[in-house]
């Protein structure tokens, strides 16, 4: 019979040898060399059928897997399957909201594919018509990345119509109208927000927008009239009131706070006391 000590020695030697072999093998293999991956998923409907009543669990597990999968940054072609993966998850349980949000975040910030994100968010909105945040997120991506203010306005408008939409969605909607240069409509929208503001923050935000829109309109008019004045009299007007006496203006506009615009008679420039650079490219 083999003595106990010998057995321990055999055990330790065996372990040591195994570790040594593994270590030797590891030096010959580059585990991260293959940066390609392949994902094959059955359709959401098939997954739902095969889950036999445990579809929620199947969607959860697939969603958790997708988070780990899309965090594996060395897999260079992982985005090839992005739409398919999130389509499958959301086909299994269309009411599961997180996959729409997280999936679109990956599509936008990692895969840089905004139209794909919009398709997923549209699906989320279709299946959860009472939720406002799918349209809110879609509107934000259109505004921030596509600079498509009309499309962003469309999404914000749809989000604002949802029963539990927060007040700031209306403000975002009005801001988009302003950004796509429809000042008349934007002014009306902001005026409505200003008149129905429920707190000082909302009132202040609306005030700033009304100030800016009015200033942009007024300053454009004043600059045009100052230019006409210069062409007629070959000099800049000494004061803005000269535009009234020369009948180029019927009345002098003031800013939304009730103050006069600042006029520089030496250079013929006119400006507002406050400037918001919201239209910076």
């Amino acid at each position, binding site marked *: 019979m083999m003595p106990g000590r010998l057995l321990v020695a055999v055990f330790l030697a065996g372990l040591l040898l195994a570790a040594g072999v593994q270590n030797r093998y590891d030096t010959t293999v580059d585990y991260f060399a293959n940066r390609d991956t392949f994902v094959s998923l059955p359709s959401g409907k098939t997954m739902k059928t095969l889950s036999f*009543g445990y579809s*929620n669990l199947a969607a959860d597990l697939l969603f958790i897997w997708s*988070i780990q999968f899309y965090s594996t940054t060395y897999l260079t072609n992982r985005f090839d399957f992005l739409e398919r993966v999130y389509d499958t998850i959301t086909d299994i349980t269309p*009411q599961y*909201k*997180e996959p729409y949000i997280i999936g679109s975040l990956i599509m936008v910030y990692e895969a840089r594919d905004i139209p794909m994100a919009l398709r997923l968010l549209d699906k989320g909105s279709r299946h959860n018509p009472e939720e406002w945040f799918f349209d809110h997120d879609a509107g934000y991506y259109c505004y921030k990345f596509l600079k498509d203010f009309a499309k962003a306005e469309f999404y914000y408008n749809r989000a604002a119509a949802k029963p539990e939409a927060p007040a700031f969605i209306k403000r975002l909607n009005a801001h988009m109208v302003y950004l796509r240069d429809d000042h008349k409509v934007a002014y009306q929208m902001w005026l409505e927000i200003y008149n129905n503001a429920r707190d000082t923050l909302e009132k202040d935000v609306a005030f700033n927008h009304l100030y800016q829109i009015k200033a942009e309109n007024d300053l454009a008019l004043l600059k045009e009239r100052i230019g006409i004045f210069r062409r007629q009299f070959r000099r800049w007007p000494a004061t803005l009131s000269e535009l009234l006496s020369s009948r180029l203006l019927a009345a002098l506009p003031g800013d939304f706070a009730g103050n006069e615009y600042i006029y520089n008679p030496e250079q013929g420039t006119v400006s507002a006391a406050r400037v918001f650079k919201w239209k910076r490219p």
Partner: protein
Amino acid sequence: MKMKIKAIAVNTFKESARNKMFYLLVFFGILFALSSKLISFLTLGDAIKVLKDTGLAAINFFCVLIAIFTGINLVYKEIEKKTVFNILSKPVSRDQFIIGKFLGLALTMLTALAAMAGIFFLFVALSGGGFDLKIILYFFMLFLELLVIVAISLLFSSFTTPILSFIFTVSLYLIGHIMWTFNEFKLILRVPFWKYFTQALYYLLPNLDKFNIKNEVVMNTALNPWTIFFSVLYALAYILALLAVTILIFRKRDFQ
């Protein structure tokens, strides 16, 4: 008559409760339900949703296992061990025997479910999910499903071996959860005979997905009271039908 059924039911319950497998499955049911917390750590967003999903699925799965394993052995064991002769030689009819067995199994399921559900309900509350009364409604619906499964396993147990009973019951359980595909299947069939055949199967086989309200509970969407009401009626009708067939088969069995 009531006393005899009660005696058989209590005895069946005690017998099931003495089974180590029963405790093992309840233990694992609770363990898996509680380990849903670990899975919920891995997700992004609503962790409570994942916790509920995985926990309810674990309880559901282990309760179904208990229902199948206890159900398929019950009558068969009595016949194999010849204890059925002792019982039936007393003034107990075969009908009373089957009804008693069913009620005993129902009590066993209620006990197992109550243990798992109670712990999980508190666990969800302590994990920040609050006292979600919809979970209780879910367990009620699960209990109805378990009763149907118990009735199915009892039916097979009355005339075949445990292995075949297991295969038949599990098959019906799986089919019962994809009954919605029958309606779609019917649409692609062109021959009227197969259409009617599929339709007949749709009504004949147990529609167990009727009792599955996991989605409504976890997503916190509205539950239609009529759906619950019809599901209760459906369960009662189906159980009655299954018990009637079981009794008919059991009446005709010749114990040698």
